């Protein structure tokens, strides 16, 4: 069978196709079909010749096979030092092999490769920091995922996720109307507590354009309200776009580069349309990576930057606290042992390590903050990055992968983990569910709202 009805090389681009795929419980039929779809070896090789240039080729060639990257990979460590988890091995036995064979690989090989690409690497890029040659296996895995996606070998949820972006320009079936509607009523829910709280949609020329994660809209709109409250109290002139509000990109995890481009274009269009001074994104790691770090290249912006200056929520927050736009009541600072999860996507891969620590200085009573070890750009992945969290097929592997973070947290003795990243937040929630170590975890917004020293004129009148 060259192509399956559900599992095939064609991206999802209609709501009907999405629903059909969704209704295939656990992707049962999808994965069954995958076992017999054909590999288009010509296309594979042509794609490689066009897109695999000196950087990756050199990496594959000069890799000394020295194994120094092994211990840098948390998946190697957590899988009882299984040599098959050595980063160099994972990439040599997949992408390396495909190139050596000039694309002549079979279905079986591709299925195994898919498992490695999505369950043995979270694209956390930590190994790049430990290889003497500077070989970044995470980047190569990302590239490999693109090849696999093109051939139809992609986990079910990620095919759906990329399809969501294609159909809804959001990672979930949240329409622009849903977004604006939800945003408005959730803000309404909080109006009494914060007089004057507004839900500004599509304001031209605002100082800040705020973008979110569709999950906030769908499952915890509180987060939208909290963002509104914090901007309101900080006295910011801000807005959200009615179109182009979604910052995330499951298509990046899926390796669907065309969908990545479509998604991020909507955000850039919103920037061009509303002409804000800056864009602030929500507390999400991969969303920031997609829209701010990688996105400009997907759409072909030569300077590698979005149309307007774009920052992560923690950068805005750090600045607001530092400049006194937001004031913390020192009596209400956190007085429990607290630790911080550094997200790979904006700490290792965008250098934001000091912003979060600036925030910590304001909100945690001195002496109560404990760093994880390792930390900052050397921190381990939460265990659920790169799409790992969402793939049902690899759930057992994912759960095992959480042990790294669990033990890191345990050895800090912290009771509260601040996780300003959706993926990390999820992974930590799941690890508590899986291993019950008695911790709490939180985004920054709710924690900060509780300890704000609100100026007199913004408080509710008695």
């Amino acid at each position, binding site marked *: 069978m060259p192509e399956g009805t559900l599992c095939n090389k064609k991206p999802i681009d209609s709501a009907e196709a999405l629903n059909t795929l*969704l*209704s295939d*419980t*656990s992707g049962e039929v999808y994965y069954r079909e995958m076992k017999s779809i054909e590999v288009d070896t010509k296309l594979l090789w042509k794609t490689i010749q066009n897109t695999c240039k000196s950087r990756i080729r050199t990496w594959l060639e000069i890799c000394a096979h020295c194994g120094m990257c092994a211990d840098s990979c948390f998946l190697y460590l957590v899988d009882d030092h299984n040599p098959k988890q050595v980063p160099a091995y994972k990439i040599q036995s997949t992408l390396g092999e495909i190139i050596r064979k000039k694309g002549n690989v079979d279905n079986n090989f591709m299925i195994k490769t898919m498992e490695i690409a999505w369950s043995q690497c979270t694209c956390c890029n930590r190994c790049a920091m430990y290889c003497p040659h500077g070989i970044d296996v995470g980047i190569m895995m990302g590239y490999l995922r693109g090849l696999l996606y093109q051939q139809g070998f992609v986990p079910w*949820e990620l095919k*759906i*996720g990329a399809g969501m972006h294609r159909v809804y320009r959001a*990672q*979930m079936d949240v329409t622009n109307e849903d977004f604006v509607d939800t945003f408005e*009523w959730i803000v309404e*829910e909080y109006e*009494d*507590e914060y007089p004057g709280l507004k839900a500004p949609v599509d304001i031209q020329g605002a100082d800040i354009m705020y973008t979110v994660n569709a*999950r906030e809209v*769908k*499952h*915890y*709109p*509180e987060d939208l309200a909290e963002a509104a409250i914090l901007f309101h109290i900080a006295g910011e002139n801000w807005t959200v776009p009615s179109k182009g509000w979604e910052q995330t990109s*499951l298509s990046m995890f899926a390796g669907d580069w065309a969908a990545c481009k479509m998604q991020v274009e909507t955000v850039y269009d919103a920037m061009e349309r509303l002409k804000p001074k800056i864009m602030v994104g929500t507390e999400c790691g991969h969303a920031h990576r997609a829209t701010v770090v990688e996105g400009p290249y997907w759409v072909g912006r030569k300077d590698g930057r979005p149309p307007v200056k774009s920052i992560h929520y923690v950068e805005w927050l750090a600045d607001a606290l530092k400049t006194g736009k937001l004031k913390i009541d020192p009596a209400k600072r956190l007085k429990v042992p607290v630790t911080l999860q550094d997200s790979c996507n904006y700490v290792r891969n965008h250098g934001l390590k000091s912003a979060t620590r600036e925030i910590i200085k304001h909100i945690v009573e001195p002496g109560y903050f404990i760093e994880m070890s390792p930390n900052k750009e050397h921190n381990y992945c939460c265990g*659920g990055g790169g799409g790992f*969290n*969402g*793939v*049902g097929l690899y*759930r057992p592997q994912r759960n095992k992968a959480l042990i790294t973070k669990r033990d890191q947290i345990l050895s800090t003795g912290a009771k*509260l983990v601040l996780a300003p990243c959706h*993926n990390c*937040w*999820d992974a930590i*929630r*799941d690890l*508590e*569910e899986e291993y*019950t170590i008695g911790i*709490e*975890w*939180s*985004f920054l917004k*709710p*924690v900060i709202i*509780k300890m704000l020293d609100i100026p007199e004129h913004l408080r*509710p009148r*008695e």
Partner: protein
Amino acid sequence: MFKKILFATSATKASDHAARVAFNISNLYNSHMNILHILGVPSRGFSQKVTDVKTREKVEVDDEYIAWVKEEIKTYYAELLPKTKSYEIKTLIGYPHREILREIRKNKPDLLVMGRSTESEGSPVYKFGSAGSTLQRVIKASDCPVLLVNRPAASFWGSITNIVFATDFSKSSDVAFDFACKLARNINCELHIFHAQNISLTPESEIFDQDTIEQRMREKLRFFRKKYVSKMEGIDNYSIEVWEGVPYIEIVKYAREKFADLIIMAQDSKNPGSTTEELGSNIKQVILRAGCPVLCMTK
């Protein structure tokens, strides 16, 4: 008065008492009953799996599963269902508080009935990071009155004879008061208006001497009469009292003394602490301790 009621249930023992009350009301007022069951939290990031509320198992939600759950609910309430003329069973995925609130917003029921917990609150599955419980979150933001049934209600709303309205004089208390009057008129029962003067003597609280306390209670009582009595046309049987003490204890005691079948309270939505564990605890404590259902209003 209650054309549409929303009954949020886990279809487990935890909502049994609530179920009985809900179906009684539906029977009495001919109300359409909307039975809402939250299947579970989408615990798989963006995946399609949820953790089932009842079994704790990870399940894949598809049409078949939903049909099965609905059938289960029907069987569970087989005895009660005949009491209602029209009902509908609905299942949703998400955080329970959020989905309940969304449903209220969408279908505008006249009353929400729920048990104390539609989930076991300790479970990390439902823990929303470090924020408050489902109950607190629903009460805080609900547009309609919320009837909470924690313990077996003697009367099951079959024959309400005594309503206790506990006020803290907030704006939302006024709304709750209007509702209490309406209800009292409607079912022709006795209304007991009550305020508990908070004098829990913690080291931080100002220490009043007894004269001041009594002086203030007299003032409150006078204020009370002015504020409320004028609006109570058509209600013949009522009493007004002010007690001193820890509010929730006094409310519960008072309700017991008056053989209350229902306590009506307001949640002060302006109190920003109301979603956190510490605050809003007045209502929470009353719900936990009262021998009758508690009706909460925010708006």
